[in-house]
């Protein structure tokens, strides 16, 4: 279970380099994001490097999540920078 205002996040590729780790229990306090859109905003505010990426997507429970998706406790939330497989 997460404490209030806290969120467990997974980071991959360049996102991992930006925050310096692949998993982070991030404390947002009263600004804790409720939706995917708010999470993106909060990340860009804290790490300006995210604003410079070609794109930034969020996966909730290993599925791409659109901006209006609401975040619930215990969701697996991952930060998806531009993919480049193949």
């Amino acid at each position: 279970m997460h404490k209030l205002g806290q969120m467990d996040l997974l980071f991959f590729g360049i996102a991992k380099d930006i925050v310096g780790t692949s998993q982070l229990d991030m404390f947002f306090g009263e600004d804790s994001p409720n939706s995917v859109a708010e999470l993106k905003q909060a990340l860009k505010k804290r790490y300006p490097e995210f604003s410079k990426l070609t794109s930034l997507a969020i996966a909730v429970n290993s599925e791409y999540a659109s901006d209006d998706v609401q975040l619930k406790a215990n969701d697996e939330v991952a930060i998806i920078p531009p993919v480049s497989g193949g």
Partner: protein
Amino acid sequence: MNKIIEIVQDLDTNKVYQELSHPSSGGICVFVGSVREFTNNEQVMALEFETYETMALKEMDKLADTALEKWKLNKVVIKHAVGKKEVQDAVVIVGASSAHRSECFEACRFLIDTLKETVPIWKKELFKNKSVWVSAHP
């Protein structure tokens, strides 16, 4: 099973023909992506692949299902390697088999094009004095 989806350390290109072979298939089309020595005239030492594995496998599975819906296919293979890969190493294999050749060609092209857009796999190019996450910046 009409689809084979895998993320592995090392790809075995020899198996893919047997995996795609089917008594109702007259055509098999396979695409293999491999490490190129030069990118924009800069020598690549190696590529390093990282993946969000649970999600990547889900996306690869959806991709196979979409191809199986769009075309009449007997078999579909989607495999991606992870870790450090050197020049000429295979990094991705996609393929499809079908009664006639048009379907497997179109499906194979669709598989690799869409994989590159949707599957959460990241590639870092390792040059002599720097490394770059591909496509990260505009």
